[in-house]
């Protein structure tokens, strides 16, 4: 048995996933080139490896990250697993203490100064939360579909998020919502994800078209009308999909047709009246339709004792409630700069000097790159500081400007292959712990790439989060390295004989 065990436990070197490490190395190299391009200063031309420059410092961060990676690979994955809760609690304490220790940097209270450099605990806390989630979800009999277990997960995610929001780092806090993707993989109902996504859609459409009149009727807001229409469409669609399971197909068809007919007649009639007879806010008629449909569904669920109708009714009512409270939050709760960022993203503000300036300059920088780019260190837009935060959040502009479409495509495809590789590695884990942690890692990478590249391309809100391995800075680079290499260490131990 002993000899067999030895045979079955191959060396760390052989069981490491070298493909992931290769992609990691290539991304690091490309990232360093981009930092060189972005932080290049005409006054100090030629000193890209001088440690007093950003590009020189990035070499230090990259070197220390590699060292860090090496140490992580040298530890025992079982040790890491057993320390999960302690690490999580330590991070909670640290996150809680950060605002009291931090210096105010551009309104953010998330940086702790250690010696000459500052670190951002929120960047590291991600792996702590990931470990904790993995540990909790791998406990015996844990099932995220159970309310109790789901709420435990929710609390584990929301507490650090709240602490980070208190540091005024909303962007970093939002990254933690990526963990919901992990919960989805582990069994969280898909309709919850659907609900969350539709909430985002309501919000975006509602705010984007709030000020525009519907069909020339000044009293009616196009945004509100569209959202009400969407709620009606979703309601009918949900009846169509889930109604069959609740009763039978005939009943479902009948109910959905009824609601479709009434909604259509009342909506169209109300809008026609507002347009041609008496100008009034016909959105209220649409709100009425939504409400009436929900009540009708509630009545049906009572009469026939079927739960799905009740849930659909709740979805409909919840959608309306969410939309109107989001409207309120947007106008009353959000801070002006956040409001502005959202409005700019949705195309409501196009003052080139205002908040839209970032997005416009980012597009100019990327667009000017063309197919092949201007060449290493030849970009002008990022170097001359037209793009703000050009070596951190907007680093992708430098890739676009200097390396062109080809460079951008290579970088994006590298990220995609990294994420898909991690997906494959996560799925091959023999234990829930490894799988959940793997999904946490890939979800965070996916979220960062989605938001960061999206904002640079003007497709997603301008949320200040770094592009992994590209953005300048020790904290984020160390954070991502730790996150990734702990998973690689766990993966390397997958073939160990079960005890």
């Amino acid at each position: 048995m002993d000899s067999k065990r030895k045979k079955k436990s191959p060396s760390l070197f052989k069981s490491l996933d070298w493909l992931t490490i290769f992609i990691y190395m290539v991304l690091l190299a490309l990232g360093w080139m981009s930092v060189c391009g972005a932080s290049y200063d005409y006054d100090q031309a030629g000193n890209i490896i001088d440690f007093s420059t950003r590009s020189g410092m990035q070499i230090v961060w990259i070197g220390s990250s590699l060292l860090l990676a090496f140490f992580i690979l040298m530890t025992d994955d079982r040790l890491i697993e057993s320390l999960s809760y302690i690490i999580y609690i330590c991070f909670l304490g640290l996150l809680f203490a950060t605002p009291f220790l931090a210096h105010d940097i551009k309104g953010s209270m998330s940086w702790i100064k250690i010696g000459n450099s500052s670190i951002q605990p929120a960047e590291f806390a991600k792996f702590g939360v990931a470990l904790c989630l993995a540990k909790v979800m791998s406990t015996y009999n844990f099932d995220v579909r159970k309310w109790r277990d789901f709420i435990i997960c929710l609390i584990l995610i929301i507490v650090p998020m709240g602490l980070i929001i208190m540091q005024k780092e909303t962007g970093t806090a939002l990254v933690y919502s990526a963990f919901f993707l992990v919960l989805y993989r582990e069994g969280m109902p898909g309709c919850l994800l659907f609900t969350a996504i539709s909430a985002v859609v309501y919000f975006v459409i509602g705010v984007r078209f709030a000020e525009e009149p519907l069909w020339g009727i000044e009293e009616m807001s196009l945004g509100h009308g569209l959202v009400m229409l969407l709620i009606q469409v979703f309601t009918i669609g949900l009846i169509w999909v889930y109604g069959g399971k609740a009763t039978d197909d005939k009943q479902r068809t009948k109910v959905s047709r009824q609601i479709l007919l009434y909604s259509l007649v009342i909506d169209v009639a109300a809008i026609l009246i507002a347009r041609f007879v008496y100008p009034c806010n016909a959105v209220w008629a649409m709100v009425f339709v939504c409400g009436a449909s929900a009540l009708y569904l509630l009545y049906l669920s009572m009469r026939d004792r079927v739960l799905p109708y009740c849930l659909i009714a709740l979805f409909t009512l919840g959608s309306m409630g969410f939309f109107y409270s989001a409207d309120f939050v947007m106008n009353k709760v959000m801070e002006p700069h956040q409001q502005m960022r959202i409005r700019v993203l949705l195309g409501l503000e196009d003052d080139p000097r205002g908040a839209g300036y970032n997005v416009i300059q980012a597009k100019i920088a990327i667009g000017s790159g063309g197919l092949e780019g201007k060449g290493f260190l030849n970009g002008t837009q990022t170097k001359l500081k037209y793009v703000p935060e050009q070596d951190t959040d907007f680093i992708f502009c430098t890739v676009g400007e200097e390396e062109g479409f080809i460079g951008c495509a290579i970088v994006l495809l590298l990220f995609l292959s990294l994420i898909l590789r991690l997906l494959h590695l996560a799925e091959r884990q023999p234990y829930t712990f490894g799988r959940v942690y793997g999904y946490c890692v890939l979800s965070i990478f996916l979220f960062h790439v989605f938001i960061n590249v999206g904002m640079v391309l003007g497709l997603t809100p301008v949320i200040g989060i770094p592009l992994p391995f590209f953005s300048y800075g020790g904290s984020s680079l160390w954070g991502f390295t730790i996150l990734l290499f702990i998973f690689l260490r766990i993966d390397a131990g997958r073939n160990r004989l079960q005890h």
Partner: protein
Amino acid sequence: MEGKQGSTKANYELEKRKYVIGGAAVVIIIVYLLRLFTLQLLSEDFKMSADSNAFLKRIQYPARGAISDRNGKLLVYNQPAYDVMVIMIEQIGVDTLDLCESLDITRDWYEHRMEEIKDRKRNPGYSSYTQQLFMSQLSTEEFSRFQEKLFRFPGFYIRKRSIRQYNYPNGAHLLGDVGEVGPEDIEADNYYRSGDYIGKLGVERSYETVLRGEKGMEILLRDARGRIKGRYQSGKFDIAPIPGRNLTMSIDIELQALGERLMKGKLGSIVAIEPSTGEVLCMVSSPTYDPRIMIGRQRGKSQKLLAQDPHKPLLNRAIMGQYPPGSTFKTSQALTFLQEGIITPGTAYPCSHGFHFRGLKVGCHGHGSPLPLIPAIATSCNGYFCWGLYYMFGNRKKYKTVQDAMTTWKDYMVSMGFGYKLGIDLPGEKRGMIPNAPFYDKAYRGSWSGLTVISISIGQGEVNLTPLQIANLGATIANRGYYIIPHVIKEVQGMPLDTLYTKKHYTRVQRNYYETVVTGMRQAVLGGTCRIANTSFYEVCGKTGTAQNPHGQDHSVFMGFAPRENPKIAICVYVENGSWGATYGVPIGALMMEQYINGKLSEASQARATVFENKHLYKTNDDLPPAP
């Protein structure tokens, strides 16, 4: 066991969710790649935006060429002026009230100007990232006042430019002036950008491309805050400006000044030409104005006042005024008749106070009759030249029809430089009028004869010449048969003169006939109509003209040259409504010739000049702004 099986099945179901997550990642990356594709490969706009962001293309203005007179006296040179520039994107938040006060402009003007700058139709090169001309040509005092406060107005810059300055108050029509380019100039020549200067009149316009030089360009790297971070590629693509070439005019500024002085209060023109070279020695058009009122920002105001003046001071009468030449034209007739063999110097025609024939009457003054050619020229006999034309146009042995005779006559006239633009190097020259056979065929429906058109023989009727053409006639006679196209620029620095201005144009008349006419003109000075011009210092030849015009008093004309041998100056004086040629034309011409040949006026002549200076034929306009 059942539960475990169920959970395995559920786990299998859940494993399929990896495709949802992986699929989402793939979709996101594909969407981003498509977005990148449209941003980077489908639109050129971003490249241009990027260039206008990062490259500050600073234009380097060359010094405009200086202009001096034929004796090397500096007439026009450059002096510094200061333009106020604005970069729209940087000027937000400027205290406009303070700005308007500092620049002494009104709020309305400010707003109007800002609108103008942003209007791409009027300002095609507009970009909110580059310097746009806000206000031009601040004087040194205005500039120093504004510069003290400049730090308070971000986005506003000072650009040093040079504007023209004039040493003499003379020669406005010749020198012309410089003003901002209009939209049509930018349209016509893409060298110009809004706010550039261009020659507007005179040699400033006709020699614009020589005077302006070539603009240079510095390509600077500018960061987001507008700070200059150095030269693009260490100035590899910079272009150095090429200064404009200096011009030497053929004008004698002293002579020009005297001419303007003598023409004060009179409408008309004086043109003097050096016969051997075709160089214009002076070109006076009256009324004139001081070129210095056209400098800087007062140009617009002055221009408007001048344009409104009923006496049209902006009109260069020397080349744009088309007048009947009157009796000065008789010399050209004499030459034509001699060459065509209609007369010989000995041929005498009768004149009994004019030309009386078949009920037609052209009046003349008292002199002996019949008389041959030379006294006919000297006494300016109308009858003689009417007979000449009558016999020429009626000569059916030589010319088959009157049309043939007319065409021959016209060819002589054209060979003497009439009827078409001479081609002087000034803008706006008019061609005058020499009628031809089809013209009369149309006017008289084919039924006309020498008698019908008899008045053209004495420089009346349909014949019109510019004073320049009359002066050129004088030069041609002085040269005994050829002229060189008159020109006002003697030398362009570093460039040979256009061969157009060195080539001799021979007329159709032989040299010996010219001698006869010269003798007639000499007789006119010695004992004819031009006696006032006689002087013991040199031999003056001249011919008066008293041109009738339907609008009032006759025009007073003089055409002459001196000395008789190796002439140095040929001249035309044309005074509108000055009555007899001897009243204004001859004395003014005599003073001009004296000034040029002797280099100064004698005391007696000075006194006479003052008398003429103060003889005014119309009420002068005192509304014109004084020169600074």
